[in-house]
C-alpha cells in the first residue's frame, strides 16, 4: 500500500492521476484504490489519510472489531456451532466412506447428503468479516461500490470466488462474475468488496456471501466464497486487457495501461532446502504465482508491441534495479524494500519513506520513458 501511495504521488505530480478512467485492483492494492475512488478528498488530504492508515496499520482494526464489537461473538458462535458441526460431519463422512471402501456398504448417498449439509451451515462471523467491519468503520462507512467520487472513473475491485474458481468483480458499473451473472438489488458496500479482494487465503478465511444474480434474463440466488483477487489475477488487469471490453465491468477499451505491483520480485536463493511440507508447498505456491504473473506481464508487453495497447507501464517494486532504463542517484534499492510484508501491520516512518519513495521514483522513470505521451 505504501509503494502504491508513492506511485500515486508521482502520477499526481505528472498530472495523470486525475485523468485515469479505470482503476482495477486486487488484494492490498484494493484498500488504496478504494480510498482514492470513494473518499473523494483532494490529493493532499488523501495522501495524509493514507499515511495515517499506514502508520496505524489495519491489523489493529481487525483486533478491535474481534474484541470490541459483536463481530467477536459472531466469530465465537460460528466456531462453536458451525465449526463443531463441520467437524462432526467430516468425521461421519470419513467413517462412512471407509465403510463403503472396505465393507462395500452403499453409503454414497449419505456421504453426499453430509457434504451438502456442510454448505448450508451458517457463517455468522470470521476474521474477514471483522476486517470488513474495520474497513467500514475506519475508511468507507456504508458507501457502496457504485458511488465513485471521482468524475469519469470506473472502479473494479477484483476477488476470487472459491466455489467456482472464477473471478468475482465488484464494479462501479456492475458486480458479479460470468458463472452466475450480475448481482441484483442494492450494490455491495466498498468495505465488503475490499475485504473480499484482500482476504489473503493464508491468513484470512473467505468471505461467505449470498447474492441474487441475473444471467441471461434469469434470476438465481447463489452463495459465493470470496477470497483475495490475486489468487485468480495477481495484477487485476484481466478486465482491462485489450479485447476484454465486453467483460464484466463494462469499461471502455483501454489505450494506456499502468500496473502497480508491490510484489518483491525474483526469489532469493533459499538458504535452506524447501524440503518439509510447509516450506515446499509455500515455495511451490509462490513459484506458480510468480510464473503466472510473468506470463501476464509478457502478454501486456506484447499488446504494446503490436499496438493493441498504445503504451504499457510496468511499475514493479521487485524490479531488478539494473534492468531499469536509468536510475536516479538516490534510488531506493530493491533490496531495501523487497521483503517488507504486506500484512497491514503498523509501519515505521522510515519504511513508509522507503516504500513510497521507491514507488514514486519507479513511476517517474517508467512514465517518462514509456508513457510520456500521457503527460500534459
Amino acid at each position, binding site marked *: 500500500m505504501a509503494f502504491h501511495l508513492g506511485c500515486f*504521488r*508521482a502520477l*499526481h*505530480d*505528472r*498530472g495523470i492521476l486525475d485523468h485515469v478512467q479505470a482503476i482495477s485492483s486486487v488484494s492490498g492494492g484494493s484498500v488504496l484504490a478504494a480510498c482514492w475512488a470513494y473518499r473523494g478528498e483532494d*490529493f*493532499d488530504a488523501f495522501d495524509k489519510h493514507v499515511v495515517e492508515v499506514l502508520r496505524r496499520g489495519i491489523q489493529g482494526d481487525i483486533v478491535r472489531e474481534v474484541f470490541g464489537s459483536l463481530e467477536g461473538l459472531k466469530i465465537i458462535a460460528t466456531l462453536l456451532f458451525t465449526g463443531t458441526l463441520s467437524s462432526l460431519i467430516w468425521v461421519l463422512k470419513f467413517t462412512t466412506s471407509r465403510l463403503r471402501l472396505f465393507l462395500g456398504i452403499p453409503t454414497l448417498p449419505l456421504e453426499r447428503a453430509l457434504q451438502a449439509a456442510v454448505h448450508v451451515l451458517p457463517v455468522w462471523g470470521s476474521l474477514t468479516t471483522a476486517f470488513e467491519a474495520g474497513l467500514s468503520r475506519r475508511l468507507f462507512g456504508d458507501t457502496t461500490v457504485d458511488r465513485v467520487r471521482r468524475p469519469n472513473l470506473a472502479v473494479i475491485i477484483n476477488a476470487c470466488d472459491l466455489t467456482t474458481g472464477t473471478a468475482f468483480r465488484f464494479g462501479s458499473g456492475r458486480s458479479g462474475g460470468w458463472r452466475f451473472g450480475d448481482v441484483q438489488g442494492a450494490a455491495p458496500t466498498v468495505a465488503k468488496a475490499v475485504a473480499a479482494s484482500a482476504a489473503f487465503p493464508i491468513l484470512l478465511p473467505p468471505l461467505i456471501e449470498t447474492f441474487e444474480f441475473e444471467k441471461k434474463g434469469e434470476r438465481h440466488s447463489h452463495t459465493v466464497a470470496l477470497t483475495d483477487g490475486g489468487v485468480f489475477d495477481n495484477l487485476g488487469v484481466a478486465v482491462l486487457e485489450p479485447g476484454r471490453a465486453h467483460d464484466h465491468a463494462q469499461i471502455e477499451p483501454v489505450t494506456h495501461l499502468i500496473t502497480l505491483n508491490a510484489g518483491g520480485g525474483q526469489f532469493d536463493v533459499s538458504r535452506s532446502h524447501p524440503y518439509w511440507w510447509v516450506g515446499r508447498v509455500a515455495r511451490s505456491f509462490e513459484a506458480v504465482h510468480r510464473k503466472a504473473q510473468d506470463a501476464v506481464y509478457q502478454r501486456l508487453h506484447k499488446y504494446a*508491441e503490436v499496438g493493441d495497447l498504445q503504451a504499457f507501464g510496468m511499475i514493479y517494486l521487485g524490479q531488478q534495479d539494473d534492468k531499469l*532504463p*536509468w536510475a*536516479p*542517484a*538516490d534510488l531506493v534499492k530493491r533490496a531495501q524494500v523487497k521483503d517488507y510484508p504486506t500484512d497491514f501491520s503498523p509501519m515505521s516512518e522510515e519504511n513508509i519513506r522507503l516504500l513510497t519513495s521507491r514507488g514514486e521514483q519507479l513511476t*517517474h522513470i517508467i512514465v*517518462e*520513458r*514509456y508513457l*510520456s*505521451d500521457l*503527460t*500534459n
Partner: protein
Amino acid sequence: MRSEGQAWAAAQLEEMSSASPEALDILAMTEPAVEHDKLIVTVSVNCRSFEKSDGGISLRARERLRISIPWNFPLNRPEVEFTHDRFGGTAHVQWGHSICLFQAPDVEWQAGRGMFGFMQRVHDWLKAAAAGQLDPTGMPLHPPVAYPVANFRVVPTRNVPEPGEGFWSGYVEITRETVYVAEFGRWIAQNEVIPDVRLASVILLPTEMPFEYPKTVLDLLVALIDRGLTLSMLRLLMTITVLRTPPGKPAIFVLGAAMRGIAGGERLQHLACWRMSVEQTDKLRAAAVASTEENPVEDQAFYAWAFESNVEWCRVLEDRPEIVQRRDRESASRWWRGKRVTLVGCGAIGSAVAMILAKAGVAKLRLIDNGVVTPGILVRQGFRRDQIGYAKSSATRIAVVAADPGIDAIEEYSNIVWMLTDEAKRAEILDADVVIDATASSTVAAAFEVHFRHHQAPRPPIVSMVVGHNGDMGLMILTTDKSAGATLDFDRRTKLALADRTSSAKFLEEFWPADPTRRAIFQPEPGCSSPTFRGSYADVLSLVAPMTNVAADWLREGIGLPRSFAIDLSADSKCRSEARASWRPYHVLPDSKHGYEVRITQEAMSAILTWTRRSERTAGDRVETGGALFGQVDEFLKVVWIDEVSGPPPDSEASREGFVCGTQGVAMMHKEKLSRTCGSVTFVGMWHTHPKALPIPSRTDLGAMVQLLADKETFQGRSFLMLIVGGTSGRPILSAGLFLRGDYDQA
C-alpha cells in the same frame, strides 16, 4: 465430332429435359461439322409461368431458343438467341435476336455449373424480361448498341453539355489523334466562335434512340429527323466538319442520346460515334469547295453518299467524369487528385512518386532535379534506355505527360539548395499544396530547415522519403506549416522515438547507424559515383507506394501534427513491419541572448511542471526547484532542442532564497541518454524555478554562468542553456538564455 465439353453440355441438357420435358424440350441438336465447331441445340422453353407486365416483352407460351455451345465448353460460355426477330430493338436483345445474358461474363459465368447454371440464367432472364425488370430501379441501364465496324476508337474526356428541351448541336475539339484513336476535348456550341482546330460534329438528343442504332446513313438521318432535326442543319454540320477535317483524315460525328444512367434516376448522354471514310470525306470536302448555286455538286455528293453508305460506328472509350467512376476513388491516392505538388528529386524515389501522382490525377507537378539519366540507374528508376543523357526532371516530365497530358508538368534542371536561396525560385517551389523531398539528401533537408528557421511565413506540408541501403526499408516524414522545424528536425525526433522502442531497433540501425563504417559502402561505379543504395525498380516501388499512400492519408486527415512512417520489407522480416510516430507541437521560446530558438518537447515541458508540482506539494509553493536539461544545440540552425528533463539531483539545495542544482547522478544520466539516442540527446543546461516571480535571471544566476563558462575545468561544454520557470506550476512563465563560452573568452 463433339468435344468432351460439348458432350457434357448435351448430357446435362438431356438430363434437364428428361426430368421436366414440359419445362425444357430439346427440339434439335446440330452436331459440329468440323473440329472446333459449335454444337447447336434448339430448345423450347415453357414461359407460361412468367408474370407479365406492361414494360416487359411479350413472350409466347413457349419460346424457341437456339443455344450455341462452343467446343471448349465450359471454359467458353454458350450463347443463346431467339429463333425469331420479334424482340429486335429491345434492351438486352442484340442483333434482333441475341440475348445479352451476362453483364460481366468473366465474373458471372461459372464454368463448374455447366449447362445447369446456364439454363438457370436463361430462365432468370426470361422471367425478368417478361416482368420488365431487366433494368431494375437503381441499377445501371443497359446502354444502347451501335455495332462498331470501324477499327477506330474515340475518347470523350469532358462532360457533355446539357441538350435542353430540343437538342444540342455543335462540335467537339479533337485534341489528340492517331490512326486508331481520337481524343476529344471541349465541346463547342454551334453559336460559339468555331476555332481553327480539328473538329468532330456533335448532336446531343434529350430523347432516346432505338436500342440498336441504324446501320445505314439513310436510316440514321431518318431517325434524327424523326427526333426534330432538320436535314439542312445536319448537312451544315457535316459540311463544316468535312471542311475542318484535314485531307487524309476521316470526318468524325458524335451522336448522343439520353440513355445512360441508373434506372429510375437521372438520364445522362450515351455517346455513339461514327466516322466517314477518308475517301468520302475528301470527296465531300472537294464537292463543298466546288459547289456553287448553279452547280450544286455538294448536294449530289451528299445524297449519293447518304443513300449508298452504311454507318461506320466506332467504339467509344468513355472517359467523361460524369460517366466513369474513378477506380481509385476509395484509395488513399485520391487525395492527390487536383493537387499542386512540388517534387524535389526525380531519382529512384522521385520518378516513382511522380508516376503515382500522375496516375492519381495531380493537377500540377513541378519536377526539380540536377541529375541526368545514366545507364546504371535504369534497373531501379522508371526511365527508358532511350532517355539516357536526359535530365532526370525532363525524363520524368515526359513520363508524366504521357500518362496524363492534362497535368501541368514543369521541369527544372537545377540544384534545389541553390534555388532555395533565390526568393523568386523559392516562392515557386513553395507555391504548392505539398512539397515532396525525394532527394534523400541531408543537405537539402538542412537547406529547407534553415529557410523555415528564418522564414515563418505559411508554407505547404513537406513530405520527405528515403530508402534504406539495401532497398528494403523506407522512411517517410511529414511536417506541416504548424510545425516548428521541418524534415531535419523530425528526422531527429523519429530517431529519438525509435530509440525508445525495442521493436524498432532495426529502423534505428538502418537510418541512423551507430557505426556507419560497419556498413559496406555501395559505389556502383567505383571512384566515379556517389554511394547509394542497392535495390531494384520493384524494391523501390514496393516502398514508395505505401509511403505515398500513408502520406496521402495523413494529408487527407488534415491533422497538423508532424508524423513519421517507417516500413521494413527486408527478407528476414516474418511479416511487414511498420513503425509510426507523431508529435505534439513544441513549446517554443526565443533565446534572449543569441537569437537561438529553444524548442521544448511537450514531454520535457511536462516533466518540468511535474517536478515543480512535486516541489510545491512537498516543500511549499515558495521554495525553488530545478534540474538538468537534455537535448541538442545546433549552432548552424541556431536551435536548441530540449527533449528530456530531470528533477533536482539528490545533492541539490533548495530554499526560498535559491536553488543550487546538485550534480549527483547527472553525469550518469547524460551518459545513458547519449548512449540510448546514439548521440542525439546530451546535457545542454539546467532549469530552475522562480516561484511566483518573473523568470528573469538573478545576479546569482548570472554569476553562476560566469563561474561555469569562464572555467574550463568545471564545465567543458561550448554552451549552457539556462531555463527559468516563473509563476507556478499551474501558470508557468518561461524564459531561456543560451550562454556561450565564447562570450566569456572574449570578456
